[in-house]
C-alpha cells in the first residue's frame, strides 16, 4: 500500500497495481527457486527491470526490494543481514533504471527499433549487473572482513557469468516481455513517477 501511495498518491488503494506487484514478485521468486541450482543465472533481474520499464521506477524498485525481502530470508544458501540489505537495495537498481529508461523511451516504438533496442537493453543489463555485483561484493567484503580488492577480484569469474547471462537475457527477452506486458496492461501504464 505504501508503494502504491508513493507511485500513485491519488489511487492509494488501487488493487490492480498491488496485484501486479504481487504477481511480478511471485514470478521472480518462482524463477529464483527453480534456478537455485544454476549459479549466477537468474531471470529475476530481467523481470525487475521490465516491471520498472513498463510500470515505472517506483514499482520496479518495489518489486526488487520485495523479491529480496522474501528470497533473502528464505534462502537455501543462508541468511546474512548485511548482505540481505545490500542485495535488496542493489536489486532495486534494476527497477529504477528500467523505469528511467522506459520513461525516456516512451516515444519509441519497440518493434521498429528492435536491433538497436536489443543492443541497448543488453548493454543496460550488463552495466546494471556490473553495478549489482560491485555493490554486493563490497558488502560481502565488509561483512566478513575480507580485503575489498581481494573480494572483488575473487568474484570476477562469477560476476562475468552473471553479466554475460544478463546481457543475453536482457538483449533477447526484454522487447517480447515488454510488448506482452504493454498489451496486457494497456491503460495502466504510465511513464511517470
Amino acid at each position: 500500500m505504501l508503494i502504491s501511495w508513493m507511485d500513485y498518491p491519488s489511487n492509494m488503494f488501487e488493487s490492480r497495481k498491488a496485484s501486479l506487484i504481487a504477481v511480478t514478485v511471485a514470478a521472480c521468486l518462482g524463477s529464483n527457486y527453480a534456478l537455485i541450482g544454476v549459479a549466477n543465472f537468474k531471470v529475476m533481474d530481467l523481470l525487475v527491470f521490465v516491471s520498472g520499464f513498463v510500470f515505472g521506477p517506483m514499482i520496479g524498485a518495489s518489486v526488487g526490494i520485495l523479491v529480496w525481502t522474501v528470497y533473502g530470508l528464505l534462502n537455501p544458501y543462508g541468511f546474512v543481514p548485511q548482505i540481505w540489505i545490500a542485495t535488496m537495495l542493489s536489486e532495486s537498481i534494476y527497477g529504477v533504471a528500467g523505469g528511467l529508461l522506459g520513461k525516456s523511451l516512451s516515444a519509441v516504438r519497440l518493434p521498429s527499433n528492435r536491433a538497436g533496442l536489443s543492443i541497448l537493453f543488453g548493454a543496460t543489463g550488463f552495466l546494471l549487473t556490473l553495478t549489482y555485483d560491485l555493490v554486493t561484493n563490497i558488502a560481502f567484503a565488509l561483512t566478513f572482513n575480507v580485503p575489498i580488492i581481494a573480494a572483488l577480484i575473487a568474484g570476477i569469474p562469477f560476476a562475468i557469468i552473471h553479466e554475460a547471462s544478463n546481457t543475453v537475457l536482457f538483449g533477447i527477452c526484454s522487447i517480447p516481455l515488454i510488448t506482452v506486458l504493454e498489451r496486457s496492461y494497456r491503460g495502466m501504464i504510465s511513464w511517470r513517477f
Partner: protein
Amino acid sequence: MAFLKNKWALAAICILCWAIAASLLLGYYYYQYTDLTSRLERSKAIINLGIDYGNGTRIWFNGTRGLTLYDAMLEAGWKVDAESYGTMGLYVKAINGVEQSIEQSRYWTWWMWTSLGWAHGGSACDKYVLSNGETILWYYSYADPKTFEITPPP
C-alpha cells in the same frame, strides 16, 4: 533516442561492455598469475649445489634456490645444454661448455650427499623437486662401457 539508429553509437556501447568484461578478466588472471608466482617463489628450496669437472676442480654454490634441480642450476648461472625426453625429463649433455664424451665414456650425472655417502640422483634434473638443505653435486662421471657402472664422485 536518435542514437538507436546510429550504428556507431551502438557499436560503441558493445565495445564498452566488451572492454569492461575483458578488463575484469585481465585483472583476474593477472592477480592469479602474480599470486601463483609469489607462492612458488616462497616455496623454493635452498640447497648446496656443486659441480665437479672430474679433473680436480670442484666449485660449490651454497644457498642456491630453486623448485627443481634444473631451476637451481640455472639460478646458479650455469650454462646447461639439455635435451628433452618428454615426460621422462631433461637429459643433460653439457654444463658450462663441458660436453659429455661417448669416446671417453664420460657423462654428466648428479649425486646427493647422504649419511652413507654420495647417492646417484636417479631422475631427470627437471623432475627432481628440491628440499631445503640438500647437498647436490653434478659430476663429470666415468661410466664403464661394458657394465655401464658409473663412478661416484670422490
